[in-house]
């Protein structure tokens, strides 16, 4: 990369705000994207000579808007006069730009931009793809690679998703506080899904999918900057950083999964852990616990244990108990059972998960945990059976290989 790498970074950083504002002006995603493209081209031409403008986002918004308006005028000469209702805010002059960019305006712009990607009729993978394209500015090829599909297939998916979003009625008025909170929760969930798409992968895929986790972390930081006093957003940022801190330790050199307790902790990223711990500390002060904060607190306890045997399982069990109360789900209970097995032994944990069998029958991890507990109780035949089911349900070869290691140990 040349010395001009900083321009790419400045443009990428400004993108959500600029796209959000352009969408508000033009009320059409394609027009907003074209305007943004044009603004970027002009930035590449002028910034290297003149240096960066003091406010890159404002510069890009203004240039993009003017370029798109020129374009609309040219087209209008060929066809018909533009519908004024379609082009809002045409009359305002540059002087009012500063006001427009101040305060809550751009916060709602960015939130809206993210929120329209979360259209409830879109399957979650399409929501993610759309957000990566529109908000993060990843190319279709980059997104296709991360989702392990062909570029043509991804192009088609994104086009369809855009059409669907375009047909839906978008709310452009400033949202009220309850509506803003709802949008934020929806967007936060989508960002966490994006992160998980990049995280739960085997090693071969991990490299291709790594950009998903990276972009998700950029997005959650953006959300936190827009909503700096929201403890759940602090919690989510902390959770993602703490989980991502272990990325380098999750696979051995043969590409096999390395479980948390067996990971080489010197490979964990100290910078990410420091940020995660600082944020969870801040969030806790608000005394408004939520699922992201609790999960982050659990991840923090793992991050603070120098060795696996130093892990504060008792505290983790308590945190899971809180999470169960706040967000009851068989998967949470299953996770808690792992902590219970460390505190009270495998029998207590097994009793805890047995009632979950009917609901988690098709869940790989359920049979894996059950097998491990049975193995500890030296009920080898039942353990073998549970592991067998887990292998049949495994999502990735690495998961299956991991269970096979357990089976090997049982038969040796």
């Amino acid at each position: 990369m040349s010395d001009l790498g900083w321009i790419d970074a400045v443009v990428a950083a400004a993108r959500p705000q600029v796209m959000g504002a352009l969408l508000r002006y033009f009320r059409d995603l394609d027009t907003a994207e074209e305007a943004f493209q044009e603004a970027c081209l002009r930035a590449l031409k002028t910034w290297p000579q003149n240096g960066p403008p003091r406010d890159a986002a404002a510069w890009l918004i203004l240039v993009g808007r003017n370029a798109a308006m020129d374009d609309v005028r040219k087209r209008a000469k060929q066809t018909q006069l533009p519908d004024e209702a379609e082009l809002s805010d045409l009359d305002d002059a540059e002087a009012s730009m500063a006001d427009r960019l101040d305060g809550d305006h751009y916060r709602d712009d960015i939130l809206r931009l993210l929120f329209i990607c979360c259209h409830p009729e879109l399957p979650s993978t399409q929501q993610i793809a759309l957000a990566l394209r529109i908000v993060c500015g990843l190319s279709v090829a980059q997104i296709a690679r991360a989702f392990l599909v062909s570029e043509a297939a991804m192009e088609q998916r994104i086009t369809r998703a855009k059409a669907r979003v375009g047909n839906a009625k978008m709310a452009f008025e400033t949202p009220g506080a309850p509506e803003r909170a709802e949008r934020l929760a929806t967007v936060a969930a989508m960002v966490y899904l994006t992160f998980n798409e990049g995280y739960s992968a085997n090693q071969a895929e991990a490299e291709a999918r790594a950009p998903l986790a990276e972009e998700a972390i950029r997005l959650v930081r953006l959300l936190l900057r827009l909503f700096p006093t929201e403890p759940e957003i602090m919690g989510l940022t902390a959770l993602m950083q703490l989980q991502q801190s272990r990325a380098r330790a999750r696979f051995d050199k043969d590409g096999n999964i390395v479980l948390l307790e067996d990971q080489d902790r010197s490979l964990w990223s100290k910078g990410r852990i420091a940020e995660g711990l600082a944020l969870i500390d801040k969030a806790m002060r608000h005394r408004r616990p939520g699922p992201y904060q609790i999960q982050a607190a659990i991840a923090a306890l793992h991050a603070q244990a120098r060795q696996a045997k130093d892990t504060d399982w008792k505290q983790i069990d308590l945190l899971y108990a809180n999470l169960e109360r706040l967000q009851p789900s068989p998967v949470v209970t299953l996770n808690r059972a792992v902590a219970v097995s460390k505190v009270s032994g495998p029998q207590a944990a097994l009793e805890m998960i047995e009632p979950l069998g009917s609901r988690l029958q098709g869940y790989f991890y359920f049979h894996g945990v059950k097998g491990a507990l049975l193995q500890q109780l030296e009920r080898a035949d039942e353990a073998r059976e549970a592991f067998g089911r887990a292998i049949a349900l495994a999502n990735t070869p690495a998961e299956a290989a991991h269970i096979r290691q357990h089976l090997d140990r049982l038969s040796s």
Partner: protein
Amino acid sequence: MLYAILCYNSEDAVGSWSKEYHAQTMERLLTVHDKLAKQGRLGPVARLLPTTAATTLRKGREEMVIDGPFAETKEQLLGFYIVDCASLEAALDVAKDLAKANPGTGSYEIRPVAQMHESHLPAEKKPAA
């Protein structure tokens, strides 16, 4: 005289650096650091976590704890150097070297240090490099 060189930049932009650009920039900066260290002029150097990790305590009859940095600004304080310089001119030279190693947006504020506490953190409390 000791000078503080305070590094301001848009943390959004710095957060958007590609891995390669980050690595290249760090390498260029390290060359500047090494030169100063060899001359025995480099004091504490710190890179701060993002302002989202910041908390502000506002003094008053009742102290107020606020999430976030002290002021909302377009460019944020991201880190600082303490460097021993013979003159403002020399301090500006250091800042220019840093700017050359890390071009683009941002600024360096050069502030003479009035006083510095002599104590040092015990080795095990020092943050990891």
